[in-house]
């Protein structure tokens, strides 16, 4: 009588687990009816399988070490947000002298830029005068007196809207004694209004002409 008839599950497990050699031997034994004993090799494999852990743990500690090093690097190179702002000026040496055109109001030649000519000036002159202490006394946009810098910014914004796609240029003609703080506010207002070119100049009678 075949010994494996009553234990089909054991036989099939052994066949699967111990490879093709054992499967062939088992099938031969089944055919011949001989008793098949597990070899010492197969017993060793069975013991080894029993020793395997149920869960394979991923080693997280080295990854955590690396992550801490990266974190330390980014913390050390971290720079908090600065309160400093920038007013960018492009001042080429050979800038065309627009502000000294006839009547103090110049027009850029927009025909070469492919822009429509609206017939209005797009380079405005802002004149700032100061007292002996350098405090701001008066501001003029073109020939019109402006009460303060906020109003100047508002008017420049409205002018920029009227110009539509034409570039707005602003030339600041300021008293050389004027404090830089006031001048910076005027230049910042022009920048906020959308002026694409800002020139710094001094009135011809007080300083050198603008280049």
């Amino acid at each position, binding site marked *: 009588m075949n010994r494996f008839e009553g234990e089909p599950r054991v036989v099939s497990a052994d066949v699967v687990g111990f490879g093709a050699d054992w499967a062939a031997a088992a099938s031969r034994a089944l055919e011949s009816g001989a008793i098949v004993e597990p070899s010492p090799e197969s017993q060793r494999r069975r013991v080894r399988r029993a020793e395997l852990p149920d869960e394979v743990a991923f080693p997280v500690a080295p990854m955590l070490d690396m992550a801490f090093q990266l974190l330390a690097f980014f913390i050390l190179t971290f720079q908090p947000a600065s309160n400093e702002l920038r007013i960018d000026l492009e*001042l080429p*040496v050979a800038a065309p002298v627009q502000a000294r055109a006839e009547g103090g109001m110049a027009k850029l030649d927009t025909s070469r830029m492919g822009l429509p000519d609206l017939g209005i000036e797009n380079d405005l002159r802002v004149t700032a005068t100061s007292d002996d202490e350098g405090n701001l006394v008066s501001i003029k946009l073109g020939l019109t007196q402006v009460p303060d810098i906020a109003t100047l910014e508002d008017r420049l914004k409205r002018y920029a809207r009227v110009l539509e796609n034409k570039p707005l240029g602003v030339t600041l003609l300021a008293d050389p004694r004027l404090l830089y703080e006031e001048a910076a506010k005027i230049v910042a207002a022009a920048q906020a209004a959308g002026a694409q070119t800002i020139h710094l100049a*001094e009135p011809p009678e007080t300083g050198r002409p603008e280049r």
Partner: protein
Amino acid sequence: MGIRARRRQSGPENVSPNLTPLLDIVLQLITFFMMLVHFGSKVDESALKVKLPVAPAALPGADPGLDRLTVSIDPTGRLVSASEEVPDTLQAAWWSKQAAIRREGAELIDLPAASLSTRVLVRGDRRLPYGRLRRTLAESQQAGFERFSLIVSRVEEATP
């Protein structure tokens, strides 16, 4: 068999803390700092401490890039750059020297040296007269610099 052996038998073989939540938090922190990092964009602070003018209407501006030259000007017009103090009379020569250095560097990497791409960051004191600032800009223009940025403050700085 002693007590120690029995205790070892009753407890688990290996006690290891669960590091996965800690790793999650650390990776989130790394992501946060990585998104906020900006290398080399901080304006160099010169040795000269100046009180910047307050002009909140100014725009933050894009990254000035690495090709830049930061100068500070005190109320008397004294110019300081990278801890180097430049006397009033030598400022034109100093600008020429800076332009020559940059032109030489541009030639080494085969860039056209006709116009300097260096951006000059001007940190002028708020009490500086406008005429003095303009003179400094004119001197640097004559040396070949064309791109300038006036550094201003968004808010009133706290006095120490």
